[in-house]
């Protein structure tokens, strides 16, 4: 098939960037979307032009490195599919395809289609872990976890950290990402000791990093390549409220005269 591609080109963080149109013939329907871009890049290099920079690594839908906005949709038109797992059989001869980077305040563009997502790593530093020292664990089977709970935790834990939820959100919120992490741990016994701290700190960090607020657009759920449900956002909200309201002795266990 033949395609017309409108691709965002931007030299570096400072450059303003613009769309450039390319024509590509002989696209095979078995190709993946990224293989189609590989072919374009080979042609550009052979012509003496600069290839299009885009991020990718595993090409199996699990590392979360890839992520392009394709015709307005983060990761393209197929539900539950990362860009690298999208195949050209979902397009047809003569199609015009617009390809852009994630666009969000918290993800500055580095070059062409590559963005800086280090804000997600920084969010994780605010409690996206269980504080357990290597070697101090008890036997793994000592703590029973109901299968349903563990499966639900896994539903949340499957997040690949690609940032599509942020890119799709009109407010640029990272709620789905944060809620997946908070819920994953809140559902498991191992996450209990730090449950409240985690909810409060991660929500606070989200604001500090310049992510927007959630106003229930639900776009994030629709584009999540791992189909993570916004039910977890509901869970995060409850976790946050419960954590914010201190009860009885939680306000302090020692008497101090003013």
């Amino acid at each position: 098939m033949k395609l017309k591609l409108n691709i965002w080109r931007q030299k570096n963080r400072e450059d303003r960037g613009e769309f450039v149109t390319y024509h590509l013939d002989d696209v095979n329907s078995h190709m993946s979307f990224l293989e189609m871009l590989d072919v374009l890049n080979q042609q550009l290099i052979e012509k003496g032009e600069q290839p299009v920079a885009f991020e990718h690594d595993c090409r199996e839908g699990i590392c979360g490195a890839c992520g392009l906005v394709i015709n307005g949709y983060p990761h393209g038109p197929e539900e539950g599919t990362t860009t690298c797992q999208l195949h050209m059989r979902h397009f047809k001869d003569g199609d015009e395809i617009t390809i852009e980077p994630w666009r969000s305040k918290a993800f500055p563009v580095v070059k062409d289609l590559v963005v800086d997502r280090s804000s997600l790593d920084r969010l994780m530093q605010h409690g996206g872990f269980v504080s357990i020292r290597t070697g101090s664990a008890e036997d793994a089977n000592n703590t029973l976890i109901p299968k349903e709970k563990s499966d639900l935790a896994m539903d949340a834990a499957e997040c690949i950290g690609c940032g599509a939820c942020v890119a799709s959100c009109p407010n640029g919120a990272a709620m789905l990402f944060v809620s997946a992490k908070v819920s994953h741990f809140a559902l498991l016994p191992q996450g209990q000791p730090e449950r409240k701290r985690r909810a409060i700190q991660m929500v606070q960090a989200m604001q500090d990093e310049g992510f927007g607020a959630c106003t229930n657009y639900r776009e994030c759920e629709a584009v999540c390549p791992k189909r993570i449900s916004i039910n977890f956002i509901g869970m995060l909200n409850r976790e946050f409220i419960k954590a914010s309201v201190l009860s009885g002795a939680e306000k302090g266990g020692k008497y101090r005269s003013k």
Partner: protein
Amino acid sequence: MKLDANIPEGPIEKKWENYRDKVALVSPANKRKRKIIVVGTGLAGGSAAATLAELGYDVEAFCYQDSARRAHSIAAQGGINAAKNYQNDGDSIWRLFYDTVKGGDFRSREANVYRLAEVSNLIIDQCVAQGVPFAREYGGKLANRSFGGAQVSRTFYARGQTGQQLLLGAYSALIRQVAAGKVKMHPRTEMLDLVLVDGRARGIVTRNLETGKVRSFSADAVILATGGYGNVFYLSTNAKGSNATAIWRAYKRGAGFANPGFVQIHPTCIPKTGDYQSKLTLMSESLRNDGRIWVPKKKNDKRPANEIPESDRDYYLERRYPSFGNLVPRDVASRAAKNMCDEEHGVGLTGLGVYLDFADAIKRLGEQAVRERYGNLFEMYERITGEDPYKVPMRIYPAIHYTMGGLWVDYNLMSNIEGLFVLGEANFSDHGANRLGASALMQGLADGYFIIPYTLGRYLANIGYDDLDVSHSAFSDAEHQVTERISSLLAIKGKQTVDTFHRRLGEILWDNCGMSRTEQGLKDAIEKIAAIREEFWSDLRVPGTDRDLNQELEKAGRVADFIELADLLARDALERRESCGGHFREEFQTEEGEALRDDENFTHVAVWEYGGDGAEPVRNVEPLQFENVKLTQRSYK
């Protein structure tokens, strides 16, 4: 080259315990004074960096991706082994040790493997405590599945994303230390050289992949955990960025490279469809638990699978290996698939494929149960091929997957260069000539969480303190060499792209150093590789500059190293005149076509030493002693 494995005294069951009891310790105050470089944030590097920082060391960690969480370990699907014996099916540390030594076709070091089996149980405890949501039974206990090369069910898993969950566990431990200020994380930073001062590893030279800035880092010890080099074949199941540069640079600085020819070909990958193909996708080995592998009995049978009656199907693994059936080790399964296709029983458009059929499993367990076990793998298959494996059998074919070879290390996981430690897939230590499924994750985490904290301490306790920093001339010299090399890649200004060379290199290796190898084929390969190398350095085209994000330049450096490594790989395969595990030399096989070892002459690790530019590399050997497991002809019949 001095190769002392430094195996502790005592019976195998006591070696590690004795070692830990006697090993020198570093006091907390002194740990703070020690800086450690960890290159790689996969299971091995991530777990090492986190644990060392917890202990109090000052850690600088590096990865080439934009985040530590994206290391290639994330892609592991099927599971991780441990000798918990939760299934009460006869498993034990001894049995895991035995299976691993036998699975590796008696080309690994017994003491290392025993220790691996020993710490395997701690790994599961650790990961569960971190909140890794392993699969569970209704009673709330952990579930297990079986993997190839074992008759017990010892594999722990998290759906088809075990590597992801384990890596996110290690990453969370790492990020906790980043938050605590004990780890300084350098993403999008590629190590391009190792720096030695007075014969010890004292630092690295890196390039910032966004700005192009070349910068040195100094330390008291350097840990490489940079993964495998399967991408030397171009098409493999590895991530596109997986590379050999870090270990290759270390090799050129004097580190021994062990068994470079030991490469694993995974039997169940989605077959290639065209020339544009950029990678091959693995379908987890766990599928062989319930899927049955077959080909049509008739040659070139073009009927669709569901029109081929039972009587016309050959379930060749079940037929040839009745006791292990579809669960024979990877090397055996891969070779059998190749044989069937060579004899024109292959399926699919290219004839390079065999069926992996779930019809019986769906009948036996119901579609829902199959969906629960393998749902995401089936989805992935359908996304890539457009075919629904609940209805038609999957088509699979072997692909390059894992490298057992790597930098040589002793029992301390230290290479022959003092202060250079190598962990995970980047080292050679535990899997001999063939790795069993679900054992790489185990090894990476064993190395990082439970072994390096002791062995690194031992090293540091015995060396002095100095105030060496990057102003030492060894760093400026190495930086200079790195910059020169980058400039020369950009200066070639030829006509062919990096990918063109990489693809051609891959074809040479796949044809001559792949599933079966011959004396002549390997000699041809060495010649062809030399020719490619010359052409590369005279006709490569790298667009752009070295001052910004330049993905072609990154690839060019990696492929330049792959070309050199390919030569060593072929030489190693040529010199090992026997068949063992994944290394199959057509000249050496039993009457039934199984690998024929030559224990008298080859019960050793081949450790290659860099001979200088243009000079031949030198082959050294570390003899292997088998005191606990008897050397036998592997049989899975």
